[in-house]
């Protein structure tokens, strides 16, 4: 289409006209501006992180001090315990990691980083958030309906989840399912927007390999999500019918098969972990390049590893089902594919580490978070290998070892990666600088307790402690481990306390932090070439950026300064 410039001029005319639409709060809710929608996702995700964190606090207190009343909550019954862990797992993945890493950062950064003024489908974008908000309301209210919230784990295995006689939460389980399905729809709509925006709305001159890593990774993740969620969506319909119409898709007494759900779930579930991993990796890479003042070590290599990870992730799902009654010979195939996936991910980690070589590393708060991501994620990654080795998983399955493994991947991704991105783009988003000292206190106050929560859980897992049990006093072999559980819980309370520094920092900086200039970190990518915060339309219409080079030209020998923005003519 050669008519791009002609129509852009046409669009300019429109852009200069006054907007007509609802005013006040309604205007905010009905805005189609990608930055506003990003903020809606960000704050909804932040709120849900507090909900999920609070749930973790409640059930960890119950584990450390079983049968005692938990401050701010009360006594935890077994049914409530199950509902809490189910809610915690589902919320942290579907309503924290996904909305913040993909939707919030994706909406905010993709248009800004590719030099566009908005998404290509602004109204679908708004619809996506509205459906998401609906799913939030459904999942939150499901916790308070008669019978209580769903307690069948975030994996929702039938027949337990399919039959109210078994789970005793007739309303809760259906509402959980509906909420998850709505969330999927929201992210399908959002994903189509991200993908087409990246494909079509790039600034003039921006070639495929000039795109920064954040848009790339979010778009690869969206494609991965889109291609893996379908079967589970169909599965959700079947499960909903089983729950409410009395069909028997997953009921063995009526010709169904409970293991079918597990296949549908994990065919999505495993790619899903990379769906949240990739955006976090993209954020970390951009931050590392900026603060190490270094060109990326192998831009294309990173892209290939991301795509290879994505492709491989479709062939590993049954490693969650080694002992679920599948044919034991099948396990061998999945052991091979699972271990193979360590190669691209190892390479990804090595490339990030190698980028530090020859750098000029500045340990600002966002950089601390980004580096912590690498250091901690490695623990989560290598412990995945124990589980991928079928012979070892025969013992480790469903123990706290699995739990520690995936918190060492998810926490770096969803919490550390988010804090990295949040502190890095805060000046752009809110036009103010954050306080470095408070930021560092918050950083160390989060990272140190984090390790003290989850390292002990590896030990518990190797010791044979199973997941999803509300009270270990019933198991003689596990009783002597109580001090370890208490250690983990106390560390959590310490970590939660240090989050206050974060909120204090955010509120303080927002109101009276020093004004941020356009490009406080001296970074190359396009979002730093506009005002902080960017105006509606991101750039004045006649100053839309053009791109002349890749995003990571730091310390280029031909240049006086140690950075070279993408939009500066040669």
């Amino acid at each position, binding site marked *: 289409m050669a008519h791009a410039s002609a129509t852009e001029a046409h669009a300019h005319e429109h852009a200069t006209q006054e907007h007509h639409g609802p005013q006040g709060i309604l205007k905010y809710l009905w805005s189609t501006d990608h930055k506003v929608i990003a903020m809606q996702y960000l704050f909804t995700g932040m709120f849900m992180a507090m909900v999920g964190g609070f749930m973790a606090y409640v059930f960890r207190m119950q584990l450390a001090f079983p049968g005692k009343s938990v401050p701010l909550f009360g006594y935890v019954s*077994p049914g409530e315990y199950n509902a809490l862990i189910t809610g915690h797992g589902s919320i942290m993945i579907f309503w924290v990691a996904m909305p913040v890493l993909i939707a919030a950062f994706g909406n905010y950064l993709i248009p800004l980083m590719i030099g566009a003024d908005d998404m290509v489908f602004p109204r679908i974008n708004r619809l996506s958030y509205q459906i998401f908000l609906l799913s939030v309301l459904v999942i939150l209210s499901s916790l308070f309906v008669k019978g209580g919230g769903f307690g069948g784990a975030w994996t929702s*295995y039938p027949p337990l989840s399919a039959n109210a006689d078994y789970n005793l939460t007739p309303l809760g389980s259906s509402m959980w399912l509906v909420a998850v399905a709505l969330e999927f729809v929201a992210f399908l709509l959002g994903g189509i927007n991200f993908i087409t925006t990246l494909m079509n709305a790039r600034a003039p001159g921006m070639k495929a390999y000039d795109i920064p890593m954040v848009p790339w990774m979010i778009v690869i993740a969206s494609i991965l999500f889109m291609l893996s969620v379908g079967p589970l969506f169909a599965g959700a319909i079947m499960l909903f019918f089983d729950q409410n119409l009395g069909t028997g898709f997953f009921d063995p007494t009526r010709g169904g098969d409970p293991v079918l759900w597990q296949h549908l779930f994990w065919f999505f579930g495993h790619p899903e972990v990379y769906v949240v991993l990739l955006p976090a990796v993209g954020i970390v890479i951009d931050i590392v390049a900026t603060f190490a003042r270094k*060109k990326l070590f192998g831009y294309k290599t990173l892209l290939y590893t991301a795509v290879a990870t994505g492709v491989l992730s479709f062939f590993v799902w049954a490693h969650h089902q080694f002992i679920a009654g599948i044919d034991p010979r099948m396990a061998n195939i999945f052991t091979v594919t699972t271990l193979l996936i360590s190669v691209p991910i190892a390479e990804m980690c090595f490339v990030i580490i190698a980028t530090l070589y020859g*750098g000029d590393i500045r340990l600002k708060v966002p950089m601390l978070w980004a580096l912590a991501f690498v250091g901690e994620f490695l623990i989560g990654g290598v412990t995945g290998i124990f589980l991928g080795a079928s012979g070892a998983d025969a013992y480790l399955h469903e123990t706290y070892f699995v739990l520690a493994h995936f918190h060492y991947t998810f926490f770096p991704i969803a919490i550390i990666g988010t804090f990295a991105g949040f502190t890095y783009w805060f000046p752009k988003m809110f036009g103010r600088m954050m306080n470095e000292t408070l930021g560092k206190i918050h950083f160390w106050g989060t990272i140190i307790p984090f390790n003290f929560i989850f390292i002990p859980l590896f030990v518990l897992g*190797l*010791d*044979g402690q199973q997941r999803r*049990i509300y009270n270990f006093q019933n198991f003689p072999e596990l009783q002597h481990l109580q001090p370890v559980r208490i250690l983990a819980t106390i560390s959590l309370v310490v970590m939660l306390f240090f989050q206050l520094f974060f909120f204090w920092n955010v509120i303080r900086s927002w109101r009276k932090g020093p004004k941020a200039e356009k490009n406080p970190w001296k970074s190359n990518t396009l979002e730093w070439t506009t005002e902080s915060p960017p105006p509606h339309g991101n750039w004045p219409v006649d100053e839309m950026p053009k791109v002349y080079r890749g995003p990571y030209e730091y310390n280029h020998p031909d240049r006086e300064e140690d950075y070279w923005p993408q939009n500066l003519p040669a």
Partner: protein
Amino acid sequence: MLHGLITEASSFAGSIDWLIFLVLVLVGFWFILAEGVFFWLIFRFRSRPGHTGQYLTGKEKHIKRWINIPHALVLVCDVVIVIAAIHVWYIVKMDLPPADYTIRVTGQQWAWVFQQPGEDGQLDTPDDIFTTDSLHVEVNKTYQFLLESRDVIHDFSVPVFRLKQDAVPGRTITGWFRPTKTGTFDVQCAKLCGIGHGVMEGSLVVEDQAHHTAWVAKNTPAAAQ
């Protein structure tokens, strides 16, 4: 390796522990290497007066080596781990040694029901012994178990045996174990199965031949004689 933490009480517990140890050594090596290089680089290339960054694209052959060689070596480690894992998996889950006794284990919300042969040594005869939440077995005998479930998915887990297997309604899953130590151990349910999941524990009593024979004799239903 785990015996410091938890008893090894079955014939294959040692193999599993050995596999975990092998993986620990291999990935541990890479982990320490990667973290070591990582922290060293952060220290070595920290920003300080007089220090400037370099312009490296990562495309230079002699630099790319630093990624390509580890890449190949990780692949080699993967192959070693796969072979070891499948070897152990074969022993534990694919191979089915001839049974001295066959028992039936049934999970239900929220109890374990064990059915084992009475004095005649045959399963599914009138003198079978049914117990709930407690299983008596004889040391150094090979047991095959038929695992079933009456309602939802449960998981028959005996940590000291390093044994774990889902019980799926509608299926009968066959597995085996061979106790090697006497004592009383935990049986757990390892799949979330409803509000009683946390109390679905049982006990496993491994006893020597004399005790076990006596137990069987005592518990064989009289009516069947």
